[in-house]
């Protein structure tokens, strides 16, 4: 290796540093070569005694990065020192892995805490805005209960789909097919009562009043939900779904009973979360259990032929979804009877506080981490004294 090769290897190793720093270093070594030549030493000899240029470059780089960090104490510059120091191979590489894991956890913690804080603040603002100006409108809207139509048709021969599987109250236009033995009792708002029964030759209609309800060409009966005050769907095996619609828009009671006598009720009131409860004649003791058991119960006890657990689950979910809440009924029942404003404010305060606690804790933790890193970097830089091995 001659002078030129040495210098270009050095330059290569210093890439990424400010160009004036690199130039100064190169000029220094050029001067050294000149002085050595004046003293009568050959290029090869000088190159040999200068040592590995790549190694020198790493040391010089760590030094420059350290000075940059001293001048501008940012995370970026600290990170650069760390990278440069790591490049020296002084820090045990294995140590770096848990450290990186720790740093990612710290970052994740920050993201979580700040998100909690942000959402909490947002919810409180929404709540406050609602309290002061009435905007944005807070309320759980159960419009689907009275909007749209409900269609009954006779199930085709041999169709085994049980009543509950067809029933999804959150569909605006819902269809229920009645097998032989299934029946529906409709109470009109005007007081009339009509019963529909499934059969091999289509629906059998029994009307108590002057209204003549007739099946259409498709042998189906379709009516607007608004006309109806309540409907009771009875499955062949004895299970039932009863829905009673209140006068005020969006209020309703839904009761689902299995052929084993298990029963759950959902009460929908405008502006509130659905209120739900479960009645199990055979498992009184379990009723006392917290609403957490609800999901499990749904999966098991309400199961029946007439109203499958799937259907029951879906009805509950539909109720919950319509309340602007996702799938999780346990959470919904946790807010039993609370108005949405209270839920928003409570959640907001909770998130805000936990976010705040998290931020304070993380600030503290980050400060100590920072100090630790700085101490480590300083110790590593101090080790950078010229080593004497040749």
């Amino acid at each position, binding site marked *: 290796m001659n002078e030129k090769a040495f210098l270009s290897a050095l330059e290569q190793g210093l890439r990424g540093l400010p160009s004036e720093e690199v130039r100064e*270093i190169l*000029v*220094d*070594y*050029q*001067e*050294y070569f*000149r*002085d*050595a030549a004046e*003293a009568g030493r050959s290029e090869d000899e*000088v190159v040999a*005694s*200068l*040592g*590995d*240029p790549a190694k*020198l470059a790493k*040391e*010089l780089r760590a*030094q420059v990065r350290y*000075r940059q960090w001293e001048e501008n104490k940012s995370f970026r510059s600290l990170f650069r020192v760390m990278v440069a120091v790591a490049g020296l191979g002084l820090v045990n590489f294995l140590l770096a892995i848990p450290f990186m894991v720790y740093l990612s956890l710290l970052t994740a913690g920050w993201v979580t805490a700040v998100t909690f804080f942000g959402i909490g603040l947002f919810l409180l603002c929404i709540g406050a805005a609602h309290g002061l100006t009435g905007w944005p409108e807070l309320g759980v809207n159960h419009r689907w209960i009275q909007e749209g139509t409900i269609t009954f048709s006779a199930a085709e021969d041999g169709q085994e789909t049980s009543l509950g599987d067809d029933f999804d109250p959150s569909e605006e236009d819902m269809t229920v097919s009645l097998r032989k033995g299934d029946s529906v009792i409709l109470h009109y708002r005007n007081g009339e009562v009509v019963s529909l029964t499934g059969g091999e030759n289509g629906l059998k209609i029994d009307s108590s009043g002057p209204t003549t309800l007739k099946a259409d060409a498709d042998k189906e009966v379709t009516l607007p939900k608004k006309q109806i005050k309540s409907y009771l769907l009875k499955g062949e095996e004895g299970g039932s779904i009863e829905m009673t619609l209140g006068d005020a828009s969006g209020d309703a009671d839904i009761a689902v009973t299995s052929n084993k006598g298990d029963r759950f009720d959902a009460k929908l009131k405008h502006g509130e979360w659905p209120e739900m409860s479960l009645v199990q004649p055979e498992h009184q003791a379990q009723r006392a259990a917290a609403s957490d058991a609800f999901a499990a119960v749904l999966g098991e006890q309400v199961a029946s032929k007439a109203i499958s657990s799937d259907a029951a689950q879906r009805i509950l979910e539909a109720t919950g979804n319509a309340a602007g809440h996702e799938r999780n009924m346990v959470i919904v029942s946790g807010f039993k009877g609370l108005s949405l404003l209270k839920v928003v404010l409570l959640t907001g305060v909770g998130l805000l506080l936990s976010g705040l606690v998290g931020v304070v804790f993380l600030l503290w933790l980050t400060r100590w981490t920072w100090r630790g890193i700085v101490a480590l970097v300083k110790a590593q830089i101090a080790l*950078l*004294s*010229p*080593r*004497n*091995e*040749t």
Partner: protein
Amino acid sequence: MKTQLKKGTLDMCVLAILAHADSYAYEIVSTLAATMDISEGTIYPLMRRLQNEAWVKTYLVESSSGPSRKYYQLTDAGRSELTTMRREWREFVAEVGSVLGDPPAAGKDNTQEPSK
């Protein structure tokens, strides 16, 4: 052990050389190399560190034959650092010497009081 010792003392030696007179890198290395075994290339990282500590400063001297040469000069901070280093070095040598059973160094050091 010897390497560890030398590491700390190299700073002091360079400062001591500069305390005599301003000098340039090749000359400093030559002086050091006369008595110590050092890797010549590390002189610049070392000088840059001393500069960073503000113990030395540099100036350029135009030379008649070619580009200018960089000279290093001891600052006041460097001078007082050197004094401290010298004192600590003497104390250290005296302590080690007393353990090794060597006669104490000629009475320059008044902080060192033999316990006997």
